[in-house]
């Protein structure tokens, strides 16, 4: 009849794939994003800092059950970027991880970041705007636990919502944007903090 068999087969396969794609299954996003490294050159704080990642931080993710269960792990992305951030802000950084915070010798302060929330706003249309927002608390404390400074900073990345074919790439764009925004803001907040500057000045040994 004018309908060539290949087209008919393609139509059947596409319909089958699209129908099946909305059945209950889990989608885990594994976006590869570039780490944030372009921090402005400025003088580092003369501090040896113990940077600790607990398991909640390392396992942080966005998870939502919509037509399917969607999971966006962010813990490892945040860990990598936090290490780079800390190394650009402090003279020396000692990194540990795990549920137990073990004391580290001869450090001036401890930084144990906490992921407060990972959220995504969703749009009705695939080409509508969707945001990913990551909120992290950054408490810098003395070795005895006295708070030196704390801020909770949100990083926001915006891209299209995406459809079945573009969703992963759009999520990657959102995560890249949120990470860039989060770490740029965090760098600005820490480097300009009068509380950390005063603490570092007090720690300078004669």
């Amino acid at each position, binding site marked *: *009849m004018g*309908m060539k068999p290949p*087209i*008919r087969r*393609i*139509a*059947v396969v*596409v*319909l089958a794939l*699209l129908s099946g794609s*909305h059945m209950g299954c889990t989608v885990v996003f594994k976006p590869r994003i570039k780490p944030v490294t372009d921090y402005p050159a400025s003088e580092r704080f003369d501090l040896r800092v113990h940077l600790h990642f607990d398991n909640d931080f390392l396992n942080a993710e966005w998870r*939502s*059950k*919509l*037509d399917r269960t969607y999971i966006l792990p962010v813990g490892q992305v945040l860990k990598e970027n936090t290490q780079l951030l800390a190394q650009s802000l402090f003279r020396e950084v000692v990194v540990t991880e795990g549920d137990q915070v073990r004391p580290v010798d001869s450090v001036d302060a401890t930084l144990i970041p906490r992921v*407060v*929330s990972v*959220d*995504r*706003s*969703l*749009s*009705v*249309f*695939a*080409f*509508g*705007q969707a*945001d990913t*927002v990551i*909120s992290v*608390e950054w*408490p810098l404390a003395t070795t005895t636990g*006295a*708070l030196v*400074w*704390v*801020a*909770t900073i*949100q990083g926001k990345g915006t891209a299209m*919502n995406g*459809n*079945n*074919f573009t969703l992963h790439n759009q999520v990657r764009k959102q995560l890249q944007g949120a990470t860039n925004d989060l770490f740029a803001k965090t760098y600005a907040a820490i480097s300009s*903090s*009068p*509380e950390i500057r005063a603490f570092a000045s007090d720690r300078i040994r004669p």
Partner: protein
Amino acid sequence: MVRVNPHVCLVWAFATASVLPTGCALRMPAYPVHPASSYANRISHDAVDIAIHPITGASESKRYFGTNLVSRNVLAVLVVVDNHSSSSLVLDPTHCQLVGLPDRAGDEQLPGKGAGQAVGVLSVAAISPLLSVVAMKMMFDSENIKYNLHVKELARQTVSPGKSAQGFLYFRLPEGQSGKEAGTRWEVRIAVSRLGAAATSHVSLAFDWER
């Protein structure tokens, strides 16, 4: 026999895929924030201005949070802190509280209320459990409302001299009180301390829930 045109099927399939996922989008605007000194419920102490603005109206709540929170037993309170002092402050939402007070007329409208006594102390609620209260008929709405609650939430932070902080606290109201708050008196206790202080201190601000 009905014939299915494969070309039409392909167009339909791609068109469907291009608009998925579906749902109802809820994009809420940022809440406009003003200096603490411009709010009706405010206090100044040691060159620190602190103000609150409870969201008790349905229309305001729907506009900025996408749902009437009070009808779901959740009270959102905007907190604004302007630090004009020479000392740094620490603002800690996890230690903030909402306290039901006897109203000015002495009416006992809330259970267990005694004259001059707080009827109950409510701590700031975590957002995830709130979502089970703010039950949405659609998952997409729920995701967007959670997003808005988090983005507008008051965060733990240092407030340096000359700086400001603002955001919302969320309190879970007592069960069965929805719609009965009008005419009652409440107090928000904001945990704000000087940096380096040994203990957390509170600043209290009372407000009347307008009838």
